[in-house]
């Protein structure tokens, strides 16, 4: 497995944490906390237990911080502690979660409705082009609401991959290391998640366009 090493920013942050900088610590908690809670929740049975796992993981992070050597990125290292803590807790709960139930059973589904193509696999009619519509035809906030809703409906691992990659802006390498998934799985999960979100946006703008044409 290839690993992204800690960046200069990571090492600066680690120095601040070691020096007891509370603001730096809380910024990290705010950035990683929501993802940590959801990832923990994949492995344990309740939100309350997930909160305990997150807290236990942060204590593990603090204990390990003096020995952090920067062989992986700080986020990756923190998530590895989190995932280990969550898995251990899940095992204690005798809860086994098959990867397929986290990843979703629709990974082979086509990105575009097959009805859009002719027998030869070419477009039978050109796809609906909604680009440029957010500014002209609808409130941008409404579009973002549609996207947030579509992500919330995704299987947990697909949702987390697209959140880390596209909302938090992490590299694909950091995403797969943080979640402990293979390069192939990360690619497939991201493809599927983005395809589902794109379809949701298309459906949204199609209904906006139809409402506009009808009125």
């Amino acid at each position, binding site marked *: 497995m290839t690993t992204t090493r800690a960046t200069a920013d990571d090492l600066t942050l680690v120095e601040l944490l070691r020096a007891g900088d509370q603001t730096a610590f809380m910024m990290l908690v705010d950035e990683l906390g929501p993802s940590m*809670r959801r990832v923990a929740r994949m492995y344990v049975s309740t939100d309350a237990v997930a909160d305990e796992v*997150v807290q236990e993981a942060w204590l593990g992070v603090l204990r390990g911080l003096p020995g952090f050597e920067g062989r992986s990125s700080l986020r990756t290292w923190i998530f590895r502690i989190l995932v280990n803590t969550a898995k251990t807790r899940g095992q204690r709960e005798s809860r086994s979660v098959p990867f397929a139930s986290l990843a979703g059973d629709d990974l082979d589904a*086509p990105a575009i409705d097959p009805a859009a193509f002719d027998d030869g696999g070419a477009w039978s009619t050109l796809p609906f082009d909604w680009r440029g519509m957010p500014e002209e035809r609808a409130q941008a906030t409404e579009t973002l609401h549609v996207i947030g809703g579509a992500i919330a409906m995704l299987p947990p691992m697909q949702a987390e991959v697209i959140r880390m990659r596209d909302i938090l802006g992490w590299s694909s390498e950091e995403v797969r290391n943080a979640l402990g998934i293979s390069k192939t799985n990360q690619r497939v999960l991201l493809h599927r998640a983005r395809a589902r979100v794109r379809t949701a946006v298309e459906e949204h703008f199609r209904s906006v366009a139809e409402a506009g044409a009808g009125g």
Partner: protein
Amino acid sequence: MSVDASITCREVVELLNDYLEGELPEPDRVRVEEHLAGCDGCTTILGEFRETIRLTGMLTVEHVSDAQRETLLEAFRDWTSAT
């Protein structure tokens, strides 16, 4: 419309995310780019993927609960005073 017959639109749309991620092997990347150069439909979908990614990036992360923040801040203070 002149399109590289070796790869269909239906196949190209399944490769667009890997293309955007820079994770397509070189021969596939070339075939996808040649196809895109002659195909308005697939170029639209590629643009829509880009736009989807841009819009998703405008979402913000949720908040950590005040109770959880308070507990963690306390743990951090304890850790600081112990080291």
